């Protein structure tokens, strides 16, 4: 027979949860800046490499080819990483659920609505 959890533990845990996770926010800023600016720059480097390859001298052609290839690989990896992140999100900020003794037995996502007590 399943048993219910007490709501007291949930409320206590929820009240100690910070309004916003500063660490996650910092990660979002860094990852966004690196991926957003990085991908745009990588694409620019691909175009620059193509320019060297098409218009440059013999040595420049090779370096242009290499620049385009490396930038292309990095750009594709970044896109693949983005799609991976899209399909495999890290779990959202959890609220700890505790039993009557205060022992953490589960975590749940923070909800917006609750029943009137």
């Amino acid at each position, binding site marked *: 027979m399943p048993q219910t959890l007490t709501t007291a533990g949930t409320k206590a845990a929820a009240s100690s949860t910070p309004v*916003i996770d500063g660490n996650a926010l910092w990660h979002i800023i860094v990852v*966004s800046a690196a991926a957003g600016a990085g991908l745009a720059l990588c694409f620019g480097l691909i175009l620059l490499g193509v320019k060297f390859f098409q218009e440059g001298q013999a040595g420049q052609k090779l370096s242009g080819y290499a620049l385009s290839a490396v930038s292309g690989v990095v750009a594709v990896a970044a896109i693949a990483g983005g799609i991976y992140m899209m399909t495999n999100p890290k779990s959202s900020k959890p609220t700890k659920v505790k039993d009557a003794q205060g022992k953490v037995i589960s975590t749940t996502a923070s909800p917006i609505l609750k029943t009137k007590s």
Partner: protein
Amino acid sequence: MATQLILLILLIVIALGFDFTNGFHDTANAVATSVATGALKPRQAVLLSAFFNIVGAFISISVATKIASGLISTLKTYVVKDHGIVHGVSALSGTSGLLIVFAALCGAILWNLITWYFTLPSSSSHALIGGIIGAALVAGITVKWSALWSSVVIPAVLSPVICLIVASVSTFLVYRLVQAIGPDRSKRGYKIGQLISASLVSLAHGTNDAQKTMGVITLGLIAYYTGVAHWGSLNGLLHVKYQAGWVVGSSLSVPIWVKILCAAAMGSGTAIGGWRIINTMGNRITEVEAPQGFAAETASAAVILSSSYYGYPLSTTHVVSGGVMGSGLGRQAAVHWNVAGQMATGWIFTIPMAGVVAAVAWAIADIFGKGSAVGGIVIAVILAVSAGGIYYLASRKPITAEDLDATETAGGGAPPSPPTAPAATATA
């Protein structure tokens, strides 16, 4: 049982209607800059976006289950004994629960259509959240304001600012490279790049927004099955987790037919094209060039994906708007801050106004009694008439794909103007 079945069918139809409005309202997020730069013809752009929206709707259901479980898990802790179902489905069960979700959708759809008429990009997700809150409040369910603050309001404020900064820096750096590449080559190259970046944003949008409706329909199914005591069907949706004899949580599954219907509704909405909002996003905030559009879209995709990964659900509309403004700043082009101000005003009013409409819808339905389907039918009719009225008003001064095509051909000249205030003529 017949009453609840009628309400469930109405709810599914209205939810798909919301997904449809979401599709044409939020198409602009992904393709506006591509259309503005001529990287894609308007119709090609919305078809590309529709395709990736549909793909996005299928590749992950985490957002759908989060929407549904985030709501019902709040209504705990009632265990339906002998059936192992935790998370107070009783509070959102039956006709009453269906009417709450129904009213929420009405609020969200009407707000989407009103902002569409005024050519304002606004968040469909926030409209849905506002609708749920409004209906829940008048129905006597307490709103957990702290969670609303941390999960919705703060990300809504921070996300466009973060994207603005990222897009600004990104565009600044890209234009240093453009000098070395040459303007013509970079323009051609970045137009090709915009196919990729627009596809990424469309995919992210489909992953997030189509699934919100999936979550809502799943919530309606749970309310229905609970109301008519179809425990077997309910167990098919809710998978209960046990730990040492305790029910410690549950996970949700979204039926395949719900996924297909939602993907089709959003894809259809996207394919018809939200030209009014694409025009605002692509032409009225700032003049967009191909490298700048690419930088704005990649910055937007990066912010949306990283935020989703870390568990902060965002409005793609807010993020992309910030990206477009940031790209204008990065290129040191004129950004029309009065248009940005109108958009921000719309964002501020989205949750309260959708909430008010939903509350009124629930109150109207409640007049006919919680156990009656008549209330649901009445608000569905009112919604249909209102939607028709807004569409009629919009059709008196339409903005079409041909208008946007002409704007691009003219080299980003004067864009089609919006119908009336508050979307006044943009000035630098």
